[in-house]
């Protein structure tokens, strides 16, 4: 046993502390397991946030301060949780980390605090719609920001108008000292009692009506109105509509706030106050309270848009919300103003249009339209009866439907996600867009923003997958079989690999696109691809089997699609210069500043001396460090238990060691009091898979086997131990432990001179699945160890593991694979654990690694030369 305990001591480079007797109880193991699971969940959350932040840093999608604050808090919470959990797992061995964390936390808070101070209302109070785009979301609210964006950047027809800013609203609140007033009115409302709710709502609205629009704001509004009249050449009537921050964005308040139509100059300020007060309609108060959203977090902008003399109007969705995969868009419409269609009070006409090149009409349905909503001379709007001949006719011609469809598609293409729009057709037959916002597709809870892959005529859709980095590119396929192939990647090729690897960064500057079988869009490679602007489609499952080397393909990453051949029409669409609408804005600047403390990764190599807690400078560093150390802690878990403190049970199975199992939750069917169970009593799926490999009869580990003399001498001199049969007997006394739960196993073993550990979680939740494997050799001379490691590395690589090697230590990980794959790989690991036993004796220093790996996969676990051998191994029995 002297050798074993020595081995234990040197395994991780430092001596192990003695463990207090009561600490490693079974409940303690369960807690460790839960703690570890927590830690992995937090790890994924932080990486997801980081990849989202990186995308936002590109400046191509809009976001506000609320977004930044939410992401910072979530990232901080999860990073903190990971550190706390690592300290729980390790017996508080990482005391420096919480200190580093605090420093980074403070730095982020300072940035956020600075931006809060900067944000005291100071104007401008009004912006002309021609000056507005999506980057001004925080200043003008969602509706105005989106209207300005499609008007000024996409050049879609949008009426003239102006945006009253959120600063104007806050100025209004401050001038009238309304904030406290409102709070006190609402604090005692019984939200369950509609009368009480109405009463409070009325009281707040009265406060708004009684309040005055601050003179500087009033002047700005009236000046903007005058400019609008000058532009139109007549006294303008406008629609005054709410444009709250968040309204068309992350949190949907659709239809919650008010709009007033056909407003003239005399009523403009009153209408403004009324729309502001719309924040406090009973249904809006109710909506916010049941969602727990504080009132003061809703800055309110107002959009004032010139009224369109509408012949017809309605709503269009760039994707059919009921059948998102159909490749069609839908339009509905009715005569007059859009109120009917939007509010749903008449049955509108309906069109479904295919989004193919010339937009053929798929379906048209006539509605029943007995009235139309029209503006009234005295202001406001009202219903007007329609003549049956008019009411019974379509409100758009087929030609007009197609024209509108082009507008809808243009907006969708600009935003890169499905859009919902309000449209109007004026009496001269011209379309205008009155509202544009992201369309929510409830069917895809996560991917609602993604465009579905479309069929493109004349080109086969070969593969679909997850988009990690948007863009379109075409090129010949280069099959990347291993990292060593990177040097041979031709410029402009589409790199196709089994799994994503950050190593691919070496060629990112010169390849057209990246496609992988597996890989997470939140992974490190994905974020690098975004940084380099290389389109990447991951998780296609079968890219390496479906795509031939040299085959020319087109990768449309925005749709997560790979097509056969080069498709000029979409490759040409790739913008030469990315639109960087958010860059340079104050909100983007804040994001840049907070990201400095969150995103960069300095700790890239776990073997480097700089991979230490004191070197962490960002949340990303801490997360990476904690993740690595947590796996190390877990590898120790089953190795350091002894059966003294557990109700462990022995497994009745023929194995080269005795296996004891400790159940921490649903891992065994074991009646209390039994000290032995059979494999049939195992419920833990990952453990069963591992065991099925270890007990594979083809392993024949019990048979005496020939060894090479050189190998024998090497082992004998290194260990002063007698090998072969003697070793086999000694093995019988060896104990290995496995900690099991229903979807989890943590196994470690010392077979021969090798230490192996497996930690795996496996369920139907693909994202949580992982297998990690660690191997540390012993005995034999350096050359043989190196050879053995090379072989194990090769076998693991063929099994899709990501590998790190240092000396004769191997760390291998497999993450986010489906359950069946995980179980299969665990079976293979089981075989590998036992088969490596044979290797020391068999593998000479110049053995052909490829031959041994082939032998392993052919089930030749004794590594006997086959006849005729493809490549003769160096030693023969």
């Amino acid at each position, binding site marked *: 046993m002297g050798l074993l305990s020595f081995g234990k001591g040197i395994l991780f480079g430092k001596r192990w502390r003695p463990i207090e*007797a*009561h600490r490693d*109880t*079974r*409940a*303690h193991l*369960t*807690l460790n397991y*839960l703690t570890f699971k*927590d830690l992995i969940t937090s790890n994924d959350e932080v990486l997801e946030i980081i990849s989202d932040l990186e995308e936002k840093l590109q400046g191509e999608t809009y976001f506000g301060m*609320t977004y930044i*604050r*939410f992401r*910072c*808090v*979530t990232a*901080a*919470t999860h990073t*903190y*949780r990971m550190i*706390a959990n690592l300290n729980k797992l390790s017996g508080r061995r990482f005391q420096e980390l919480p200190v580093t964390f605090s420093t980074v*936390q403070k730095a*982020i*808070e300072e940035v*956020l605090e600075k931006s809060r101070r900067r944000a005291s209302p100071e104007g401008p109070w009004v912006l002309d719609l021609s000056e507005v785009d999506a980057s001004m979301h925080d200043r003008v609210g969602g509706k105005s920001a989106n209207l300005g964006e499609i008007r000024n950047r996409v050049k879609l027809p949008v009426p003239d108008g102006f945006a009253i800013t959120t600063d104007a609203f806050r100025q209004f609140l401050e001038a009238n000292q309304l904030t406290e007033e409102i709070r006190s009115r609402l*604090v005692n409302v*019984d*939200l*369950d009692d509609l009368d009480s709710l109405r009463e409070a709502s009325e009281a707040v609205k009265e406060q708004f009506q009684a309040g005055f629009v601050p003179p500087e704001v009033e002047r700005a509004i009236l000046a903007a109105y005058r400019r609008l009249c000058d532009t139109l050449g007549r006294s303008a009537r406008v629609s005054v509509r709410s444009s709250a921050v968040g309204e068309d964005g992350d*949190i949907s308040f659709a239809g919650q706030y008010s709009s007033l139509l056909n407003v003239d100059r005399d009523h403009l300020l009153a209408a403004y106050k009324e729309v502001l007060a719309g924040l406090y309609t009973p249904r809006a108060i*109710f909506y916010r*309270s*049941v*969602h*727990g*959203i*504080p009132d003061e*977090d809703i800055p309110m902008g107002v959009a004032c848009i010139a009224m369109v003399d509408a012949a017809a109007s309605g709503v269009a969705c760039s994707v059919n919300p009921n059948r998102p995969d159909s490749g069609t868009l839908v339009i509905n419409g009715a005569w007059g103003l859009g109120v009917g269609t939007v509010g749903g009070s008449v049955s509108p006409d309906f069109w479904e249009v295919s989004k193919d090149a010339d937009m053929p009409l798929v379906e048209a349905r006539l509605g029943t339209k007995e009235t139309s909503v029209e503006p009234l001379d005295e202001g406001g709007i009202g219903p007007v009866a329609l003549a049956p001949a008019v009411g019974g006719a379509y409100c758009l011609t087929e030609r007009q439907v197609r024209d509108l469809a082009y507008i809808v598609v243009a907006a969708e293409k600009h935003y890169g996600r499905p859009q919902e729009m309000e449209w109007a057709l004026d009496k001269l037959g011209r379309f205008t867009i009155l509202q544009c916002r992201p369309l929510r597709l409830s069917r895809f809870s996560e991917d609602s923003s993604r465009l579905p892959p479309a069929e493109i005529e004349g080109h086969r859709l070969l593969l679909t997958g997850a988009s990690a980095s948007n863009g379109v590119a075409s090129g010949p396929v280069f099959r990347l079989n291993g990292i060593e192939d990177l040097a041979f990647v031709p410029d402009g090729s589409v790199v196709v690999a089994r799994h994503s690897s950050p190593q691919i960064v070496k060629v990112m500057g010169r390849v057209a696109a990246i496609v992988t079988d597996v890989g997470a869009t939140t992974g490190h490679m994905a974020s690098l691809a975004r940084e380099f602007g290389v389109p990447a489609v991951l998780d296609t499952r079968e890219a390496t089997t479906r795509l031939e080397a040299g085959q020319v393909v087109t990768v449309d990453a925005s749709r997560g699609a790979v097509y056969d051949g080069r498709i000029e029409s979409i490759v040409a669409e790739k913008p030469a210069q990315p639109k960087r609408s958010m860059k340079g804005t104050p909100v983007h600047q804040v994001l840049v500043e907070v990201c400095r403390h969150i995103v960069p990764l300095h700790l890239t190599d776990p073997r480097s001396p700089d991979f230490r807690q004191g070197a962490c400078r960002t949340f990303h560093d801490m997360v990476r460090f904690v993740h690595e150390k947590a796996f190390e802690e877990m590898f120790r878990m089953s190795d350091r238990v002894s059966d003294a403190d557990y109700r462990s049970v022995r497994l009745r199975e023929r194995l080269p060691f005795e296996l004891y199992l400790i159940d921490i939750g649903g891992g065994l069917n074991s009646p209390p009091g039994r000290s032995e169970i059979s494999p049939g009593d195992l419920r833990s799926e990952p453990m069963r898979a591992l065991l099925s490999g270890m007990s594979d009869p083809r392993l024949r580990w019990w048979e005496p086997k020939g060894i090479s003399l050189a190998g024998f001498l090497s082992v004998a001199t290194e260990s002063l131990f007698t090998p072969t049969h003697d070793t086999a007997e000694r093995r019988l006394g060896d104990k290995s432990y496995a900690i099991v739960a229903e979807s989890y196993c943590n196994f470690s073993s010392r077979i021969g001179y090798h230490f192996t550990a497996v930690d795996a979680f496996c369920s139907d939740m693909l994202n949580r699945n992982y297998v990690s494997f660690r191997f540390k050799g012993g005995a034999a001379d350096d050359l043989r160890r190196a050879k053995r490691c090379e072989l194990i590395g090769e076998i693991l690589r063929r099994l899709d593991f990501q590998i790190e090697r240092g000396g004769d230590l191997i760390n291998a990980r497999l993450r986010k694979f489906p359950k069946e794959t995980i179980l299969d790989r665990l079976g293979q690991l089981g075989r590998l654990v036992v088969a490596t036993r044979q290797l020391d004796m068999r593998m000479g220093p110049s053995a052909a690694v490829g031959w041994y790996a082939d032998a392993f996969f052919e089930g030749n676990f004794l590594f006997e030369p086959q006849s005729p051998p493809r490549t003769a191994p160096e030693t023969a029995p």
Partner: protein
Amino acid sequence: MRVIRLLLVDDESRYVETLSKRLTARGLYVEGVHSGKEAIAVLESRPFDVVLLDVRMPGMDGIATLREIKKIQPLVQVVLLSGNASINAAIEGMRLGAMDYLLKPADLEDVLAKVEEAFEKKGAEEARSREEKGARGR
């Protein structure tokens, strides 16, 4: 498995009521209160597994309430809820032993998953504390 006992603390009474109804429908035992003081009173009289605690409340805020809760029932798992994203409050809460920090509006499924996770954790912590007592008694 026994029913999860959940205490919901939020000054927004409508929020408490809606969430209580929905969580009750999913098989939880839920009690709702509207202030930190009430929460303390309830926890002094009967045991709970999980507390969902609003951070910003008039009077005794969520953080002060959390401090008291950990004195009364150290093993109860506390999940903080907040509509106002503050790193300070979140980390302070975690330091004081909160299990997690959720931002409003939170999806019901997320809340439920978090509560179940908290319950599982509480079970394991109770078991450990029993075993430790046993070890000391020996």
